[in-house]
């Protein structure tokens, strides 16, 4: 969670921060699982492709945290990835080429992803457990319920949890 000497911005936490955390659960988590599965299968090209998808999801998550109301079109996504100056975008441009990728390429790609994901998670206000798992589903429902209660107390309407989805 971003911190300052003056504490955290509650309105941001209940709006854009919550959206970023939710998008992390909906998109970045599943991409990370794809990376792990491809690596375990020793499918290096697919692993690198999954790393590309992960970094795209990280970039979008960061945009949501910054107040971007989504989803972007494919045209807008690719322009952002072409012209943006976020560190995660720079990392994406350093990824190896998927066809012919080796284990070393997959390792390098995973390191780039890990660094970008770490930067992102440091910004998120809450940690959402792995959503698509038996252990993560119900705790996530609880987090959503807590958020809605806090939003209501803060004078905000119910969250549209789907507003950022592609």
């Amino acid at each position, binding site marked *: 969670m971003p911190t300052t000497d003056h504490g955290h911005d509650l309105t941001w936490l209940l709006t854009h921060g919550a959206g970023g955390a939710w998008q992390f659960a909906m998109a970045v988590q599943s991409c990370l*699982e*794809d990376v*792990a*599965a*491809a690596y*375990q*299968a020793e*499918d290096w*090209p*697919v692993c690198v*492709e*999954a790393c*590309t*998808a992960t970094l795209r999801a990280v970039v979008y998550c960061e945009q949501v945290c910054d*107040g*971007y*109301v*989504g989803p*972007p*079109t*494919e*045209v*807008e996504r*690719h*322009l*952002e*990835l*072409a*012209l943006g100056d976020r560190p995660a975008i720079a990392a994406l*441009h350093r990824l190896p*080429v*998927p*066809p*012919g990728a080796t284990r070393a390429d997959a390792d390098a790609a995973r390191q780039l992803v890990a660094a970008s994901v770490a930067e992102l998670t440091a910004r998120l206000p809450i940690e959402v457990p792995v959503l*698509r*798992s*038996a252990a993560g*589903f119900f705790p996530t429902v609880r987090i959503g319920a807590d958020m809605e209660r806090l939003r209501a107390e803060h004078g905000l309407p119910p969250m549209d949890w789907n507003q950022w989805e*592609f």
Partner: protein
Amino acid sequence: MIVNTGEIGVEEALAVVGIDLPTLLDAAGSVLDGGRPYLVGSLAVGLGNRGSDVDIHHFQPGVREPGPPYLMFVEGVTVDVEFYPGDVAARSVDRFVATPVAQTGIGGVALAPAPGRAIEDRLTRWLTALPLRADDSPLVVDDARPAVLAVLVRAAYEQLLQLAALAALADRAGGRGAAYLWRRCGRQALEVACRAGGDVATGDKWLPRRANRTVGDETLVAAAYTTGDEPAFRRVYHRLRLPFADPLSLTAVAPDEGARELTIGRRRLLVTRHGRVFPEWTAVAAPTEAATRDVEAGQLLHAIRTGQLTLSVDPRACEELLCRQPTTATI
């Protein structure tokens, strides 16, 4: 040829994630009763790995509209079931069977605008769906398959034209971002070629495997991923036999319909559908090439990137290009 319809069975597909059909049906219980359940997604087209989800679309009489997915876990495997009205697949396909199709160097391409991402994803899954019950028929009948495939090729082709227009604008704007955009063009050309070869799938990560099995030329596939400029991209699309012309003449820009102007005091502002506010903005509606005569290319890119303008394919110009191919036929 539609890849992996009849070429892979449900048991073989499920074996990739380490479960069998009786285990799945037993664990699902009544969730998969009362309708026609189909395996969709990467497993159904011979892709996937041990970590893949089992994606099921269940078509049930009495379901009025698609609802939220039902998630369950079977022996550590995530099973995602979506429910659809019983006849929705047939109704969706019926929309497209009479669409005219241009026969091009890569095969059939629909002569109608792409239907939108949500419909595109559903058609992709339904074209290659595997029935979980042996008595259930394919979701898309054989006679309709070429028409549906032509629609999916058209969708990928429109995305290619849009990317190429962006790359061309980036070149004119001094080159920043152009290399990335031309590489995306090469990659998208592979997607078009795969679909034209009958290989359709959702999920970007499978493209290397799909391209290798459909294009069958690893050197060409590698070249398509590394087209960092227009000449390299042209070489790739010529080798893939894709119909192509100047993308700035095949696309148009226009103000985004989701943006709105507002006034605060005496100040006029533009609010985009992404919730961004601009005190100054670009408003132009024209073919992209014509727009560049009034607005500098870099400014156009900024306006598109930030949601002030949209860039879309001109359907009439696109279809005129497709019809300049050797033959045109209506399926």
